[in-house]
């Protein structure tokens, strides 16, 4: 996706040139640089303020948190909160954390592979009924995921897999939008000549996919992985309906249960807040580190 980066700088230069060309003509209503950037700063404050609050609140103890007292160097309790988090209910929070990493990490990895396989097949091969099948996949994009969760629960209870790891894991492997993205990425990244050359050399179709196609479409693979990782990590409704064994909970569900206990036990407040902060960290790190991938994914999605 380095093309995007160069394009952005090109654009900036072009518009820059255009701007200097018109600098002489001032307009009464033209937006000043301060106004534009000031507005952007204002919106940024709105988006970052709650995260800043989470950061400071995670370092407060119960009375300071509930009293709305400011954070001063003398009342930082972050280490104490982390210790409480690690010991509450026999350290179950970190069990939830590992569960989330497993659901989201392994789930997104397998899901991305499944999506890229399907997207590659849709892009590279011609077979009867292909576009109809692809249309069905696109219809799947439009099915509301929560409207699906309850039917999935009813089905799972019928076949007796409710309250198991698989009840949450298997549904998270299905990501129709990922198939669409993969197809778009395969179209952009895999030149047909390369595949033909490989066929001339006598390579089998699946070998070509594994050794050439998958390698070339790796940026798309990472994008699909990132999207699905976020979706599984953030998923709340499916685990809520499927799971009742607390040992299988992901972080999101565990925090929800703890939060519903805060009314009776205010000492749960710092646990929920500190636990929330820790649960946000991996995603923020992933999004900062993989900027070009999510931007690529969002843009490819908007072509539709």
């Amino acid at each position, binding site marked *: 996706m380095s093309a995007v980066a160069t*394009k*952005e700088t090109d*654009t*900036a230069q072009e518009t*820059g040139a*255009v701007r200097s060309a018109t600098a002489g003509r001032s307009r009464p*209503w*033209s*937006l000043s*640089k301060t106004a534009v*950037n000031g*507005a952007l700063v204002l*919106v*940024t404050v709105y*988006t970052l303020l*709650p*995260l800043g*609050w*989470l950061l400071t609140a995670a370092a407060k103890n119960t009375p300071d*948190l*509930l009293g*709305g007292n400011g954070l001063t160097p003398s009342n930082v309790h972050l280490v104490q909160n982390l210790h409480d988090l690690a010991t509450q209910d026999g350290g179950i929070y970190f069990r939830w954390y590992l569960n989330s990493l497993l659901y989201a990490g392994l789930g997104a990895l397998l899901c991305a592979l499944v999506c890229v396989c*399907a997207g590659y097949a*849709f*892009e590279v*091969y*011609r*077979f009867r009924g292909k576009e109809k*099948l692809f249309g069905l996949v696109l219809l*799947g994009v439009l099915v*509301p995921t929560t*409207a*699906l969760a*309850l039917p999935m629960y*009813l*089905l799972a209870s019928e076949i007796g897999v409710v309250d198991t790891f698989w009840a949450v894991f298997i*549904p998270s492997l299905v990501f*129709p939008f990922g198939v669409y993205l993969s197809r*778009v990425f395969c*179209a952009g990244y895999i030149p*047909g000549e390369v595949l*033909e050359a490989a066929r001339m050399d006598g390579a089998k179709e*699946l070998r070509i996919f594994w050794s050439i196609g998958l390698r070339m479409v790796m940026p798309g693979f990472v994008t699909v992985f990132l999207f699905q990782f*976020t979706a599984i*990590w953030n998923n709340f409704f499916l685990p809520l309906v499927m799971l009742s064994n607390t040992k299988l909970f992901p972080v999101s569900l565990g*925090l929800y249960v703890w939060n*519903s206990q805060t009314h009776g036990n205010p000492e749960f407040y710092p646990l929920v*807040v500190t636990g929330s902060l820790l649960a946000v960290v991996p*995603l*923020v790190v*992933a*999004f900062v580190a993989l*900027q070009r991938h999510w931007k690529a994914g*969002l*843009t*490819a*999605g*908007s*072509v*539709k």
Partner: protein
Amino acid sequence: MSLRTADTARTAGTARTAGTARAVAPRRRGRYGAPAVLLAPFLTLFTAATLVPIGYAVYLSLFTEHRSGLGFGPVQTVFTGLGNYTRALGDPVFRGGFTTIAEYCLLYIPVMVGLSLTVALLLDSALARAKRFFQLALFLPHAVPGIIAALIWAYLYTPGISPVVGALGSAGVHVDLLGHPLPAVVNMAVWEWTGYNMVIFFAGLQALPREVLEAALVDGAGPLRTALSIKLPLIKASITMVCLFTLIGSLQLFTEPMILQGASSQVTTNWTPNMFAYSAAFGRNDYGLAAASSVMLALAAAALSFIVTRVTRTRSERRTEAAR
């Protein structure tokens, strides 16, 4: 990947598929082998976790559980046809959920789309600085799980805990968002989704042909005029898509009100259709009713998607005809 590059990639793709087919054609045997193997995992999962549950929900929604003998006899499952559907539709609580969603959409969609469009246009203007930083900072809320975003905001609404309510209070402004769940939930959603959609709009704006914008400039259009009359109409496809996905997402409203429920007495257990379905299944063990309301929710999403795509398509087709 920009709109234009994706388009060229797509045309290249079609051209290449033809070439590939030519290369494959001589080897007739096993022609379907590779695509079948590659598609099998997805199609199996898609069938198991999407098509079958939908089918099963439709099937379940046609039955109801019935106790014979003054309610002391064994539970019998009886076919009721569309009974569960008429029961849900006849329930003012279920209909009230859709009213809530309608009000929510009327407030949320214009505010969120308007804000993300404004920010995207500001970022696209030549005056904006530090574009990468702003994009990342605005996008970050999307990395926060919905349940945690709801938790943070629920705390920020609570007088005593919240520095915002406190600061506004000392400035003489008294806000009571816990007493008004609708704006409270809308604010949570705006916070979560504005940056995400802004990135989509911004990418669309960056991909606009520069010649068109320069032509507008030469014709004497200022930045505001260019933004409203040139840029916005040109990214209409992105705007439609964002509205469509926002609409489908809004129908599923669940997590945020569930969290607010703990802090606000105004949010009832049946506040949205999804909450209604959830409490039908887990509060009342009425699986038939739960299945019927899930099916209706999916149908509502399908109908809305159809209407949105249909309306926008006919309008753009009309415009093409007018241009001829």
